[in-house]
C-alpha cells in the first residue's frame, strides 16, 4: 500500500500540535505513515511521532538540520519521499512548510496544494478544500498527473487526541545527501514571544485602535496570559507602531484560524476580516454597535473595552480554575 510521509516540526523538543494533527490524520487513512524528523534537536523527540501515529520514522541527527535551510531541507525531503515511496506528503502551512514544500514539488514534479482546511483521502484519491480570496469562497483542489501529492494544511483544522504512549515505530537513521549550498543561515534572531505563533495558536486575542494607545495592549496581554492565547493586532495599530508587524492579523499580516478569536477594539476593516474570518468562534468587543466586526462575530459585546477586558480576565481566571 502506498505510504504517507509527514514532515514534522518541533518546538523546544515537543512535536508541534500542527504535526500531531497531520500524523493522527495520516494514521486514520489506514496507510503506513512515515514521519520525517530532521536535526539533532528534533531527533530527541522522534518517539513522539510514533505516539501520534507514525509506523516508521526517518531521522537525521545531523546538526546541519537544526537551522532551516531551503536547499538543504528540500534535498532531504525529496530523498525521503523517494526512499519511502510515499505518494502523499503532508506538512503544515508554517513558515518552514510554506517555504520548503513548493520547492520540493518543483524538484520532483509533484503537485502542491497549500492552505488546506479540509482533506479527504480515499485510496490514491486526495481532495483538499481550501479558502480562496481571503475566505470569500472555497474550492476543492484535486490532483492530476501527480504521482506525488503534497498537501499543506492550516493548523487547528484537524482533531488531536492524546498521545498513545504504548505505540512505537521503526526508527531509521538516514544520512541524506547534501547539495553544495548557495544559502548560508548567518544568524537567528529570536523573537521576544515564547508563545505559539499566531498562525498556530488555538486562541488569539487581538487589539485595535479602540485600545487608544500602545499601553492598552497591557490588558490584552493579561487576558491572553490567562487563556494561554497569542496576541494579535489590527493593521491600524501596527502601522501606528504600537506593536510589531509579526503580530498583524489580516490581509498584509497573518491568516489565523484558531478555535477562539477575541477582537478587542477592532472595527473590522475588510483587510482584517480577511485574516481571521476562518476562526471557529469569534468574540467581538467594541464600543460601536455598528462596527463591521459584529457581522463576523459569534458573540458580541457592545461596551467599553477598558471595563470589559479586565473583568473578563478575572472571570476567566476563576472559570478556568474549575
Amino acid at each position, binding site marked *: 500500500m502506498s505510504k504517507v510521509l509527514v514532515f514534522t516540526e518541533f518546538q523546544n523538543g515537543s512535536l508541534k500540535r500542527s504535526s500531531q494533527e497531520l500524523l493522527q490524520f495520516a494514521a486514520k487513512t489506514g496507510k503506513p505513515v512515515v514521519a520525517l524528523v530532521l536535526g539533532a534537536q528534533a531527533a530527541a523527540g522522534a518517539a513522539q511521532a510514533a505516539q501520534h501515529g507514525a509506523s516508521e520514522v526517518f531521522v537525521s541527527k545531523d546538526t546541519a538540520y537544526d537551522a532551516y535551510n531551503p536547499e538543504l531541507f528540500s534535498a532531504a525531503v525529496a530523498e525521503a519521499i523517494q526512499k519511502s515511496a510515499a505518494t502523499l506528503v503532508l506538512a503544515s502551512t508554517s513558515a518552514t512548510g510554506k517555504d520548503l514544500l513548493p520547492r520540493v514539488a518543483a524538484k520532483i514534479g509533484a503537485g502542491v496544494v497549500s492552505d488546506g482546511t479540509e482533506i479527504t483521502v480515499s485510496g490514491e484519491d486526495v481532495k483538499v478544500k481550501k479558502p480562496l480570496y481571503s475566505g470569500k469562497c472555497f474550492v476543492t483542489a484535486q490532483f492530476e498527473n501527480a504521482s506525488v501529492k503534497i498537501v499543506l494544511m492550516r493548523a487547528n483544522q484537524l482533531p488531536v487526541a492524546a498521545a498513545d504512549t504504548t505505540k512505537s515505530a521503526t526508527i531509521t537513521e538516514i544520512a541524506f545527501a547534501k547539495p553544495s549550498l548557495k544559502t548560508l543561515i548567518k544568524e537567528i534572531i529570536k523573537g521576544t514571544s515564547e508563545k505559539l505563533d499566531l498562525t498556530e495558536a488555538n486562541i488569539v486575542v487581538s487589539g485595535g485602535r479602540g485600545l487608544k494607545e500602545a499601553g492598552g495592549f497591557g490588558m490584552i496581554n493579561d487576558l491572553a496570559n490567562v487563556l494561554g492565547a497569542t496576541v494579535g493586532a489590527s493593521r491600524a495599530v501596527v502601522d501606528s507602531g504600537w506593536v510589531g508587524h509579526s503580530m498583524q492579523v489580516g*490581509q498584509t499580516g497573518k491568516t489565523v484560524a484558531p478555535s477562539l478569536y477575541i477582537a478587542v477594539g477592532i472595527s473590522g476593516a475588510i483587510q482584517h476580516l480577511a485574516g481571521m474570518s476562518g476562526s471557529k468562534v469569534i468574540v467581538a468587543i467594541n464600543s460601536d454597535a455598528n462596527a463591521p466586526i459584529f457581522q463576523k462575530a459569534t458573540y458580541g459585546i457592545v461596551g467599553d473595552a477598558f471595563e470589559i477586558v479586565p473583568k473578563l480576565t478575572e472571570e476567566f481566571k476563576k472559570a478556568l480554575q474549575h
Partner: protein
Amino acid sequence: MKIFVCIKQVPDTETKIKILSDQSGIDPAGIKWVMNPYDEYAVEEAIKFREKNAGAQVWVITSGPKARAVEALRTGLAMGADEAIVVNSPENLDAYSTAKGLAAAIKAEGGAHLVFAGKLAIDSNQSSVPQMVAEFLEIPHTSVVSKFEATAENVTVERDVDGGSKEVVQMLAPALVTANKGLNMPRYASLPGIMKAKKKVIKEVEFSSLGIAATEQKVKYVGYSLPPEKPAVKQLTGDASAQVSQLISALRDEAKVL
C-alpha cells in the same frame, strides 16, 4: 544585469466574489483587478536596487490571460520598471505550470541576476510559485523577507519566521527573494510614469510556445462555493458584569471552546 519581478494580478480586496452557476470558477463580471499587494514591495525593492546599481534593468513579468494581466504590468512600469513581459496563459493554471512558464520566459531573456516576488498572492494564499521558479532556475531563494542588501556576488536578507523571530540569510547571486510587508514603502506611480507605462510595448510570450506539456498541470480547482452563511451575532446584553458572565457561559457550555 536583469532584475525580474514576478507579479500576479488579483481581485482587489474589496471586490465581492460571485460564483459561476456551474461552480467552475468565479464570475469575472465586476471584478476590479489590481497588482497583488505584496508584489508592490517586490517592485519597489527591485527599483531601489537599480537606483544603486548602474546597468541594472528591472523587468516585470506575469503569467495570465494577457487581455487583463497586462494591466498589472503597466502598474509596475508606472512605478518605474523598465520592461515588461506577459506569459499569455489560460485562467487557473496551477502553481507548477505557472512557475515553469515564468522560469522558461526568464531563461529565454538570458536569465536573471535577481528575482523578486511577493511572499504570497492574496487570491490563492498558496505562496508556492516563487520558490518553484527558484528551483526551476536552479538558484537559491529566501522567502518572507523584510530587509534586503546586495553586493555584486552576495545577497543578505532578513527573513521573518514564526513567533516574530528573524533569520539572517546570505545567498550567492543569482538569487530569488519574496517580499514581506515592512521591506520598504512602495512608491506611488508618478503621472509621467503612468503616461510612459501606457505607451510601453509589453513583450508577449505564448505559454503554449514554451514546450510545457499539459501533464505539467498537476492541480485543478473544482466546485467553487461560497462560505456557509454565518448565523447572526449573539449580542450579550446587560451591564459589563452581566455581559462577561454570559460570554463565559456561552464559550464554555455552548461553543465549548474553553
